[in-house]
């Protein structure tokens, strides 16, 4: 890469990646919890995809019943710590808080949930639930991300033997590898993994189904299989220059940052981020916090259409990220090198105008001929979506995918091959952690009714 931004001091890195929402002190948590109105049939609970009984867990904080509070949270959501820190709470629970209607600040539900789960982790995660007696059935789960972990935990409590197969060496999926460090630490995700393991779930890392272990062998071992495989490959821009040194995709870049070995992550002095989703924002702000002098986000539609949450957009602006709206990349320009890939020097873009709305109602960008212009950059981070691993999924008999996602029954999350269930990003195309957590739990119940109703039929 040309012009690698100078490394920062450890103090600077720590300051740049300090938590956006630091933990509550105990009196502050109690005061905030006491502000909760304890609504009856509360809207926050309905707004949460996992339906955590928010007002109940908050009320328990006020009475000092922390164990009961933790149990209330975890009985609805096994990924409660990640959700507490990484959920877009202002469009979910906090967005539904009645205080908004009152014209006042909503209860800081995310921070209160974190306060409780942090307490639970600090206490060494004592058992909160009694698993049912073993039922003799076994479920294999592919992927130790949030949906797989949630599914595993729920099944373990119901008496199943559960094995999670994880291709990576470190479990946790995107919770471990894909969340900005100023939102949460990798260790938080690993604690959550530990919580699931304590229920008796076995996690086998470094096992890639389809290569390290065959699909047939997996099917033989288990009565049902849950696919929590997420999205595997970044969408390519399909423009010249994508192979240049200095071009990377957002998830690869973000994963390096989550390791917290910040001075080992090279970032260009001038960075272009292609795309304007929440992942793109993460990549842009992280690049800036690593020391990039100039970060420009390039998006083909306008601010109004950008898919990132408003608070993420605000965060990027606050970090000094610049925005180039109504622009599409045409060509990544770089130095020629006889020895291999050259290095990024600039990105050539076209201005666009918005045409008629497409079938999703979003106005289609139309490039303006002759509007080419160049932006000199040292690094290009692409973030225009990720895709399911069609090749792997095609090897599972009778497993149907459509529009880039695994087809499932919306109630049971059972796939077209009845032995398979799926949840998380591989059925949604990319949603929040909390949706994955909800899917995993729902699929566990789908699996349970599949195994025991089909078992009965077999008798």
């Amino acid at each position: 890469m040309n012009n690698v931004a100078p490394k920062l001091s450890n103090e600077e890195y720590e300051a740049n990646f300090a938590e956006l929402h630091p933990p509550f002190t105990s009196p502050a948590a109690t005061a905030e919890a006491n502000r909760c109105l304890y609504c009856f049939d509360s809207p926050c609970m309905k707004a949460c995809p996992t339906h955590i009984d928010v007002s109940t867990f908050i009320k328990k904080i006020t009475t000092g019943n922390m164990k009961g509070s933790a149990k209330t949270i975890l009985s609805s959501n096994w990924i409660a710590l990640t959700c507490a820190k990484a959920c877009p709470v202002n469009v979910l629970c906090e967005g539904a808080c009645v205080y908004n209607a009152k014209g006042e600040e909503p209860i800081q539900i995310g921070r209160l949930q974190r306060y409780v789960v942090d307490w639970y982790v600090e206490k060494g995660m004592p058992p909160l639930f009694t698993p049912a007696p073993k039922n003799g059935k076994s479920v294999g789960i592919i992927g130790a991300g949030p949906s797989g972990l949630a599914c595993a935990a729920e099944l373990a409590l119901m008496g199943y033997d559960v094995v999670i197969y994880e291709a990576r060496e470190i479990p946790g999926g995107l919770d471990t590898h894909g969340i900005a460090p100023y939102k949460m630490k990798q260790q938080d995700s690993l604690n959550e993994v530990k919580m699931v393991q304590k229920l008796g779930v076995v996690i086998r890392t470094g096992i890639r189904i389809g290569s390290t272990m065959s699909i047939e062998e997996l099917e033989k071992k288990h009565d049902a299989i849950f696919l929590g495989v997420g999205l595997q490959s970044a969408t390519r821009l399909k423009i010249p220059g994508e192979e240049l040194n200095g071009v990377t995709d957002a998830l690869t870049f973000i994963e390096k940052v989550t390791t917290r070995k910040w001075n080992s992550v090279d970032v260009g002095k001038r960075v272009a981020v292609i795309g304007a989703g929440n992942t793109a924002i993460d990549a842009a702000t992280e690049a800036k916090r690593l020391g990039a002098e100039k970060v420009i986000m390039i998006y083909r539609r306008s601010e109004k259409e950008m898919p990132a949450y408003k608070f993420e957009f605000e965060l990027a602006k606050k970090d000094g990220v610049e925005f180039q709206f109504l622009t599409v990349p045409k060509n990544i320009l770089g130095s020629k090198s006889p020895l291999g890939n050259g290095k990024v020097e600039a990105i050539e873009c076209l201005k666009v105008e918005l045409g008629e709305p497409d079938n999703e109602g979003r106005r289609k960008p139309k490039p303006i001929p002759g509007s080419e212009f160049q932006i000199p950059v040292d690094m290009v981070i692409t973030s225009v979506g990720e895709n399911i691993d069609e090749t792997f999924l095609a090897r599972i008999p009778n497993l149907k995918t459509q529009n880039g996602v695994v087809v499932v029954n919306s109630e049971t999350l059972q796939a077209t091959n009845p032995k398979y269930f799926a949840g998380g990003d591989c059925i949604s195309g990319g949603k929040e952690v909390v949706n994955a957590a909800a899917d995993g739990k729902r699929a566990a119940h789908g699996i349970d009714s599949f195994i025991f109703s089909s078992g009965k039929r077999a008798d």
Partner: protein
Amino acid sequence: MVDLSTNCGGIKSPNPFWLASAPPTNSGYQVCKAFEAGWGGAVWKTIGAPVMNVVNRYAAIDYNGQKIIGLNNIELISDRSIEINLKEIAETKKLWPDRAVVASLMVESDRQTWHDIVKRTIDSGADGIELNYGCPHGMSERGMGSAVGQVPEYCSMITEWVTEVSTIPVIVKLTPNVTDIRYPGRAAKKGGADAISLINTINTIMGVNLDTFEIEPSRGGKGGHGGYAGPAVKPIALHMVSEIARDPEINLPISAIGGVSNWRDALEFILLGSTSVQVCTAAMHYGFRIIEDIIDGLTNWMEEKGFTSLEQVRGKALPNISSFGEMDLLYKAVAHIDEKKCIQCNLCYIACEDTAHQCIDLLPKNGKKQPTVREADCVGCRLCYIVCPVENCITMIQKENSGTPKTWNELVQELPQPMTLEDLRKFQHEHGIEIH
């Protein structure tokens, strides 16, 4: 121009706000500092019998993150000598001639001992004497404080011993730890008191430690009851003050005490007939500086209402205190929920449904559930109004009365006695009141 000057039983002060006899008035240094801040008077921390204190003297109730809703103490009367206290009273009075300096006294129940200390107090130049018949801890076990306040005969006897030699006004301070505050009040009057102050602290145990089972606060494993004060006791004090104010047999100026934290609290006591108002817990929480807003707030209120002196305000709420038998049984009001203000927390719904009269429905509206009062079934209990967190969202709407006002006392006269439920139901039915 608003004039806040006050004359409470012959004790004059530039404003009605005195520091109560308590730790804030332990020394000349403190009282002078308070006068500097603007306090109109101070009742010196009780002087008298020799005492020795323990540590961990205070405990407080915090509520929903708010500190010191109630404060409990077992500090005894002054542990400094009578000589030093009287000397500092004299010095303070010289420095602050316009402020009220009242000496609080408590000695053993012996006429000569009382005569001696009263005479020495007069010599110090104090503006008045307050007799501490209230202290419920430490002193009461020794036959002083509330041990006197709880027995009207002792009350009048000791008051007589004091008033027979005193040349300055004598205030009797009453304990609330009695069943009917008027009896010790009447005894004070009988003993010749010039004014009554109340309430002293209320007997309380503040809490139990759930780990050690010790009483909070623990003094080396031992705890016990103490005297409770602060915002939580205000409603109790308001009631007791009004009882003294309304008793035709007493008819003495009142120096009110009990949970006064700000000018609004103070004004409530004045509206119930108090001449001066004493403050302690709020000062202990925030310091003497709170007097600024107490004076400022009251002055602004009086200006806004067009009052120029406290005489125009004092006791103005007393005529509105009534007994149940004199309230209009046919006065009708029902709850009304302003849907524009409602935030759908549904607290009114669950309160009414579970613990009142099941007359709020959750009706679907714009994809949400809107709590709605079924007026025909609303008994007007006001619980929903109490629990609603939104200002002016639930109001009690006065409905046209079904007939001329009728009190219970009148009804008792009109219906055959002893009253039967059938007769009462007939009366209710005639006025459109159905009991579900």
